[in-house]
């Protein structure tokens, strides 16, 4: 099956010398939820804007739903919806006016019933006659989503969709995103909330300094790069790590009451068994132990602070 979005050799440089995107290669399958993670200024929004026609790439090829976004821009763009990161709205207009306008702008015939359905799904129906300036931040964010959905896109870009919204709305949006995917829509979202990507994404891409350093199935990524931490709560507090335990690179915690050992879950030998044995040999007894798997956030932080040469070999699933 051909990908619904294909990006090949995408570069973007600005006149001042800033290189925003470096040789981005990415393919996204139909019906996927893809999360693009990266720190501020990494190039997430630039990449989305290049696909949507808001930024002109320096070089590279992009196809959306099989159409070249430059040569067949009408076909490509009519299939894309974009929820921008910034709150770009016409505050003097009503919810109904701006939503209907967006449908027409994207070449769709008027369909009041559909506009009504979109507004109802986003709990905006009661506010349809309200001017945007009178809405809360969360409501404005919903309007942006309604505007992006009202022309029935195949690909939806959500650029930081839940930035600045409350927990309830965030959960609601996650539900909506899943519904959209179930109906065949492909979702590409950027987010600062790793929890969001962890909750929803099928695949995760990490972009740093304009380079896509990892693209991987979320579960596989967590499995591959995930680390586990085991914490031993010892009976007698320690003042220092005993010499006999140096090779495990333990950390002393809780004023010497806990020993923490972090290990790679993919390693052939985790070292846990030998550590416990050694602790027994040294007479270090523990009451209990806690284990904790690293979150996607931990993985993300480690990736963006790892040189590309180290991160790249782990990124085996980049479909190019």
């Amino acid at each position, binding site marked *: 099956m051909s990908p619904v979005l294909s990006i090949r050799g995408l570069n973007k440089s*600005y006149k001042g010398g800033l290189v925003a995107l470096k040789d981005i290669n990415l393919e996204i399958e139909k019906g996927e939820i893809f999360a693009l993670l990266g720190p501020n200024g990494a190039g997430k929004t630039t990449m989305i*804007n290049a696909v*949507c*026609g*808001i*930024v*002109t790439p320096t070089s590279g090829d992009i196809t959306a739903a099989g159409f070249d976004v430059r040569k067949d*821009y*009408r*076909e*490509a*763009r*009519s*299939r*894309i919806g*974009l929820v*921008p990161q*910034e*709150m*770009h*709205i*016409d*505050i*003097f207009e009503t919810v109904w*006016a701006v939503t*209907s*306008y*967006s*449908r*027409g*702008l*994207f*070449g*769709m*015939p*008027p369909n009041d019933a559909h506009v009504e*359905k*979109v507004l*109802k*799904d*986003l*709990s905006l129906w009661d506010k349809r006659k309200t001017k945007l300036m009178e809405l809360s931040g969360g409501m404005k964010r*919903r309007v942006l989503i309604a*505007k992006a*959905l009202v*022309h*029935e*896109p*195949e690909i939806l870009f959500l650029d930081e969709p839940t930035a600045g919204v409350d927990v309830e*709305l965030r959960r*609601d*949006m996650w*539900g*909506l995103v899943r*519904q*959209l995917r179930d*109906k*065949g*829509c492909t979702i590409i979202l950027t987010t600062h909330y790793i929890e969001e990507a962890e909750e929803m994404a099928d695949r995760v891409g990490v972009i740093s300094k304009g380079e896509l350093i990892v693209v991987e199935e979320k579960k596989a990524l967590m499995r591959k790069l995930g680390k586990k931490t085991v914490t031993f709560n010892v009976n007698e507090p320690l003042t220092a790590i005993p010499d006999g335990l140096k090779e495990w690179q333990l950390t002393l915690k809780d004023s010497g009451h806990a020993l923490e050992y972090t290990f790679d879950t993919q390693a052939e030998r985790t070292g846990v068994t030998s550590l416990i044995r050694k602790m027994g040999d040294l007479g270090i007894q523990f009451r209990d132990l806690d284990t904790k798997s690293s979150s996607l956030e931990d993985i993300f932080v480690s990736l963006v602070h790892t040189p590309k040469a180290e991160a790249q070999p782990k990124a085996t699933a980049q479909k190019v």
Partner: protein
Amino acid sequence: MADATTAAQSAPAHAPAQRRVPTFNGYSVWAMYRFQMVRFFRTLGESLATPVITTALYFVVFGSAIGSRMPPVVEGLQYGSFLVPGLIMLSIFTNSIFNASFGIYFPKFTGTIYELLSAPISYLEIVIAFVGAAATKSVILGLVILATAYFFVPVKILHPVEMVLFLALVSFAFSLFGFIIGIWAQSFEQLNFIPMLVVTPLTMLGGVFYTIDMLPEAWQGIAQLNPVVHLIAGFRWAFFGLQGDNVAISLGVTVVFVGVLLAVVAWMFKTGYRLKN
């Protein structure tokens, strides 16, 4: 969003639509045009009151107070009547530029330009909608000013069809000019810069209050370089049949003006000048 789940279960709400975008995206053009016009009609009073009052004052001061003491411009044509086409053009120039420049500058200012740039529309469709809406407003304004003139001075229109066509063409040309200013401007100050610095002087020296042959001979040649002179002369011909030999020049100047402006807009959209990045 409490009803989101139930609504989604009842029918496919946002399933991707099957589509084929036509060569000319009529729905998009209509949506943009309508959006601009709705804003105009919502503030109709404010949109019309200022130019109508200003023009009425011109008629009172120049038409009645001063004009009544002046000899007829030509036999049977009082100075007050002579002013009508020029004053309509004066309002058309300034309002076309203002409406069109503000129309495109406002989305840039608020950031909603992202939607235009990511929509499946060509630059020509954007121009048709935005400039078309601004020109429509100017034509409406021109006709309202004409109606106002009837209250102050006798007005005759020898070539009404040509008058309306000329009105529409000049409105479109200056709206196009305003559209370019709106893209170029990076602040509200810049939005007013070109109209104040260039358009107002050209208009005041363009024969609104006089015919070119009233100027000293040396100035008459210089005035011929002012395109506004030809636009006003052509429009005045439609009313009174004066300076008929200038109609072809007037039309030619307007068409060349529109052609150059369209080329500039095409370049702006192709390069993304002050629109993208």
